[in-house]
């Protein structure tokens, strides 16, 4: 498929898929607590409702930043998701798009906290500082895990060439080398913090600082923030399934010819990743403190990602 066509298709598809994923996540979460749970389409209903509500801008807010930042956040996470999705759909080769995607995802979180803290509410200021500490905790191991790709068996930072490498080997990247398995583990451990779900939902702790930086957002702004967050979660899981666990590669060359089928398999894998890294932790664990989260991320995932780089230096 042509790269431009694929990109244009993936712009509307990625928010739809991510809202669907969020609905499935909420349903699974409810079933694990023995509840009936909301319908799978619940995020769509929430979105429609929020878009139709009144817009309120608090008197203490600096209006422009408060208004614009949710849009910036949604735009950047949407762009990241579409670049990733169009890469899987079309094998177009953009050099270094892996770094671009990670950067856009970080950008979307930062835009949201900047907008939130422009509201002038003290809780959003607390949320802001907590989110910055959390980003220091998880962004570094995550970035190193992604960069270790450049030292790995397929020395590249382009999603499509990593996918092609996996297809030519007939194996997902985690299975090909020990170093890549470690990098994948570090990346997966970073997903719950990047998605800020319960053990690491410190910046928006609902029962503690009342959603932190989201506290003053309501109506359409909240809708944009919700979309941005769910697209971000979706992109993270899809990225993990595309660069580390590209299961369609087991089909061999057919994976590159049958792009629809491989996208479908990829989505199934990312659903599984979402279940393991987002749904299960948020159901069974309790919230940590910032210090504990920082310690966790700088002990386990950072060690894993560093050892992945060291191992790939000696070709393991």
């Amino acid at each position, binding site marked *: 498929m042509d790269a431009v066509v694929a990109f244009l298709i993936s712009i509307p598809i990625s928010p739809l898929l991510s809202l669907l994923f969020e609905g499935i996540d909420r349903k699974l979460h*409810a079933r694990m*607590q*023995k*509840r*009936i*749970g*909301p*319908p799978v389409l*619940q995020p*769509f*209903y*929430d*979105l*429609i*409702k929020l878009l*139709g*509500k*009144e*817009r*309120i801008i608090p008197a203490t807010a600096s209006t422009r930043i408060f208004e614009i930042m949710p849009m910036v956040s949604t735009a950047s996470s949407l762009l990241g998701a579409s670049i990733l999705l169009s890469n899987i759909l079309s094998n177009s080769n953009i050099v270094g798009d892996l770094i671009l995607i990670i950067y856009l995802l970080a950008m979307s979180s930062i835009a949201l906290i900047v907008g939130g803290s422009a509201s002038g509410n003290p809780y959003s200021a607390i949320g802001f500082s907590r989110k910055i500490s959390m980003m220091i905790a998880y962004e570094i191991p995550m970035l190193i895990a992604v960069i270790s790709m450049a030292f790995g068996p397929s020395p590249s930072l382009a999603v499509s060439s990593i996918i092609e490498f996996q297809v030519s080997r007939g194996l997902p990247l985690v299975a090909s080398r020990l170093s890549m398995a470690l990098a994948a583990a570090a990346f997966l451990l970073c997903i719950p913090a990047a998605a800020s779900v319960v053990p690491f939902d410190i910046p928006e702790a*609902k*029962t503690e600082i*009342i*959603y932190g930086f*989201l*506290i*003053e*957002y*309501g*109506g359409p702004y*909240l809708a944009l923030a919700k979309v941005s967050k769910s697209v971000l979660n979706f992109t993270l899981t899809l990225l993990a399934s595309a660069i580390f666990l590209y299961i369609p590669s087991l089909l061999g060359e057919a994976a590159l010819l049958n792009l629809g089928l491989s996208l479908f398999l990829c989505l199934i894998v990312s659903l599984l990743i979402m279940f393991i890294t987002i749904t299960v932790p948020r159901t069974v664990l309790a919230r940590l403190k910032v210090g504990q989260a920082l310690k966790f991320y700088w002990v386990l995932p950072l060690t894993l990602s560093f050892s992945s780089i060291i191992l790939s230096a000696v070709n393991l």
Partner: protein
Amino acid sequence: MFRVISRGRIKSPWIFHLNTGSCNGCDIEVVAAFTPRYDLERFGCLLVGSPRHADVLLVTGPVTRQMLPRLIRVYEQIPEPKVVVAVGTCASSGSPFLGSEMIEGPADRIIPVDAYVVGCPPRPEAIVKGVVMAVMSKFR
């Protein structure tokens, strides 16, 4: 188009719960309505902590003099369209406290109330039904 919006509103009422001097009996029952046995979330309800996110205001208690300005303020902080449900006999009619000079309520003397759930405290099923009926009648 209009039907889509009203369906979205009916399907996702987010609840903000305000205690205006309740004895805590009603508050416990509100929380009980979200437990696995009654599971208000199956109607799309969420218990939110900020009035900016809410659609439904659950008022419990007979609105004491201290809570009067706060009740009005929280009501105004909720973006339109919104629904108010008075939970418990205190919030509905002021019941045993009616006539006390510490009481400014019941709630409907201060803000428009769309549904009353009576009982002292009401059962969680009744709260669930009250929320769903109020949302259905207001947003249809």
